[in-house]
């Protein structure tokens, strides 16, 4: 049954992807890409990746669609028809597809427990997590402690991309010469529509509460800093869509957004330095408390908080940079 469901979802994915590429109206293409992400999230879920499904649903279907729409508000919506070189591209793509499909015949079948990928470090992670870290969610444990360096690097990449967007587009009140007061008050995308306003105002507190739950329950269930940051940003973006850009930037000021972006990454790195000062190695949380397991749990809690703050700050700053441009 799950197999059939999977095949159904995957076929829908291909149809949606073809729709995205073929549609000449970019607005339609962006909406289809939201559907694409949601289908992808469902797919991840039936492949046992609950954490990834949550991330894809929050980031891909939520934030990414909003950012693309924000960019489309500043650029033409209609794609110009251009068929030059179409057949060459189709030929290249078809040949490559056939080659990749041919290569898959060497791959282990879906769900094969003997596949090489399951023989290396993964069994060790599954066995040792309860003993060394003592939290149920192995994904969070690997993310936070076993591969903590990697995650720190990813947070820095996200921060760098956010800084890049702010340099390119500016953020009134923080980056560039425009002031926050120059933004027109009360002008918003959804300001004139009654139903989204009422429903949105009802939903925002629950979205923020859910973000906090995902943040602090990440050790026990699917969730963690990356997902919580995205959900938190989504809640505030909804507020900005309803109440207007200037009002949203009054609640969380642009300068405070900068502090959030850098502060989250700094908190993560700071925990690493603290471990060094306490006599451990970088990001080895065992030294944070008298009992190594408690130390690990505190460390994961702190760095997940850093990740959440940084991701929420970066995504919100990027959204505001697009929304405040050209107004």
């Amino acid at each position, binding site marked *: 049954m799950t197999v059939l469901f999977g095949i159904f979802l995957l076929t829908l994915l*291909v149809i949606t*992807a073809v729709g*995205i*590429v073929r549609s000449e109206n970019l607005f339609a*293409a962006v909406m289809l*890409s939201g559907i*694409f992400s949601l289908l*992808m999230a469902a797919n991840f879920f039936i*492949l*046992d*990746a*609950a*954490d*990834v499904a949550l*991330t*894809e649903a929050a980031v*891909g279907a939520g*934030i990414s669609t909003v*950012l*693309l729409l924000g*960019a489309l508000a*500043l*650029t*033409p919506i209609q*794609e110009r028809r*251009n068929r030059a*070189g*179409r057949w060459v*591209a*189709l030929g290249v*793509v078809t040949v490559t*597809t056939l080659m990749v*499909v041919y290569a*898959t015949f060497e791959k282990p079948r*879906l*769900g094969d*427990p003997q*596949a090489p*990928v*399951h023989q290396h*470090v993964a069994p060790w992670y*599954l066995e040792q*997590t309860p003993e060394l870290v003592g939290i*149920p*969610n*192995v994904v969070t444990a690997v*993310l936070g402690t076993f591969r903590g360096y*990697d*995650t720190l690097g*990813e947070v820095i990449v996200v921060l760098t*991309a956010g800084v*890049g*967007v702010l340099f*390119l*587009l500016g953020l009134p009140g923080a980056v560039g010469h425009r002031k926050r007061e120059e933004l027109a008050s009360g002008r918003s995308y959804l300001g004139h529509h009654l139903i989204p306003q009422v429903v949105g105002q009802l939903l925002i507190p629950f979205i923020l509460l859910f973000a906090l739950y995902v943040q602090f329950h990440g050790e026990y*269930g*699917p969730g963690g800093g*990356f997902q919580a940051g*995205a959900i938190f940003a989504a809640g505030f973006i909804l507020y900005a869509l309803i109440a207007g850009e200037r009002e949203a930037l009054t609640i969380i000021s642009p300068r405070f957004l900068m502090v959030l972006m850098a502060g989250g990454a700094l908190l993560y790195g700071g925990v690493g330095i603290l471990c060094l000062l306490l006599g451990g190695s970088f990001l080895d949380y065992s030294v944070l408390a008298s009992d190594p397991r408690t130390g690990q749990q505190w460390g994961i809690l702190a760095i997940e908080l850093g990740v959440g703050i940084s991701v929420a700050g970066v995504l919100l700053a990027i959204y505001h940079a*697009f929304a405040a441009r050209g107004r």
Partner: protein
Amino acid sequence: MELLGLFNYWIFAILLMIGFYAVIAKPNMVKKLLGLSIFQAAVFLLYITMDKVDGGTAPIIQPGAIDQIYSNPLPQVLILTAIVVGISTTALGLAIVVRIFEAYGTIEEDETQQLDIEE
């Protein structure tokens, strides 16, 4: 039925190349970025497909469950962070597209190249 176990990988190959087609054949830059994100999503699908173990469940350890099989947590960790990095880089690309539009008045690649030659 044996070959059905490879279905996910075939979809990976098709999605990868649909995204690649948009990148190489469409001159519109927003379309190129959409194609790039389809390309990315295909890679995510490849990794997550590899994490599945028959009869397994999500790698969240249940207290008291004996002989429970868990799927592989490692590809999930890699892709979880990659998704957030993916949206950040897409946003950076979109910001560049917005600035290109402000400078050239078009986001079609062939037209911007034409304007460059005329200068």
